[in-house]
């Protein structure tokens, strides 16, 4: 069915049937190809340049703008977060510093109080000790004075027993004093 039609069309354009020339160089087909190429290419160019390419360009540009905006926002938020973290870090450090200062003050105050108490106690004790020492010294002096008197009495009694008479008080006192001093 197709073969006779082809044969007639080829006969129309002046080819010997069955011996078609190399098709790309067959000039009889050129008008058709030129016309339809022009129609198709023109149509493509018209729709692409007027409608689709600007629209695609807009889509791509809009997406780029959106991505850039998102990145900017993310960067801003990141900066904000960094700032918040820094502020938090700072307040934390401040609080730690305050806490340390308070603790130090309390420690100092307690130490001062303890020192004062201990000092008062020590003073008190020292006073008591001094008083006691004073009393001891008085007692000892008194005792020592008594010792001299006793020694003189004893010397007088011993000498009276040895020699049969009571010795001169003054001599006895001088002798006792000199021997106790030696």
């Amino acid at each position, binding site marked *: 069915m197709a073969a006779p039609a082809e044969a007639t069309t080829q006969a129309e*354009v002046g080819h010997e049937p069955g011996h*078609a020339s190399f098709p790309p160089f067959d000039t009889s*087909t050129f008008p058709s*190809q030129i016309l*339809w190429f022009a129609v198709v290419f023109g149509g493509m160019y018209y729709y692409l340049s007027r409608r689709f*390419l600007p629209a695609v360009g807009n889509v791509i540009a809009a997406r780029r703008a*959106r991505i850039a905006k998102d990145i900017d926002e993310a960067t801003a938020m990141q900066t904000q977060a960094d700032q918040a973290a820094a502020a938090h870090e700072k307040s934390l450090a401040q609080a730690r510093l305050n806490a340390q200062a308070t603790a130090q003050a309390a420690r100092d105050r307690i130490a001062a109080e303890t020192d004062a108490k201990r000092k008062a106690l020590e003073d008190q004790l020292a006073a008591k000790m001094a008083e006691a020492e004073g009393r001891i010294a008085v007692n000892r002096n008194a005792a020592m004075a008594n010792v001299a008197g006793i020694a003189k009495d004893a010397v007088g009694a011993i000498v009276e027993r040895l020699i049969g008479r009571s010795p001169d008080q003054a001599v006895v006192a001088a002798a006792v004093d000199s021997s106790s001093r030696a």
Partner: protein
Amino acid sequence: MAEAGPAINPIEQFELSRFLPITVGQHHYDVSITNSTIFMILAGAATLWLMSLTARGSLGVPGRLQSLGEMAYEFVEGMVRSAAGEEGMKFFPLVFTIFMFITMANLIGFIPYSFTVTSHIIVTVMLALIVFFTVLIYGIKKNGLHFFKLFVPSGVPIYILPLVVAIEVISFLSRPLSHSVRLFANMLAGHITLNVFGGFVVMLLGASAAVKVVAILPFAMTIGLDALELLVAFLQAYVFAMLTCMYLNDALHPGH
């Protein structure tokens, strides 16, 4: 040749067949709707469909096809910007249309039993002439006579200048030829090669059982060539678009 069957005629795939015969004018120009027409329309429709989908796409995460459309957009955008500069962006729709038309035509032509629009030289010549005349007309409109500085490179000694100018003019005029033949020849040769090796497979399978095993060799070759041709299909579209950008750069900045 008739006995060998259609499988080994590698030229047959380039033949046009009329679906709807139309003639116009006194001279009865044949502007029939052919298989080439259908595949041109398919390439254009595929491009417009992809880009309309991309244009209506989401501003958030794009889908697969939207990504593809945006990739094509940014690929060509980068190409134009790097080769022709910021000023060259006014030609971005043109370069994009050229690139997508060639890419789609090449890739659709890859499907078995389909037709490769770019394997016909008249189509690639039309593409190249669009670029050539855009460069010429825009270059003269924008730069006036300065445009012809393009043919006079600076720093050339005066006594060889005529020769250099002649060479530059010839090279400028031969641009559409090399521009179009490169794409045409690549697509034509690739499809012929694929068809020849595919034909070998069919021929060998038609032979005796012992010979059938040998069919593996051209079959493996066909697979390798398929991969290569897929690369070429994309690469030639890229090369064509890239050269377009460089020629447009001449129109924008002659005298470099």
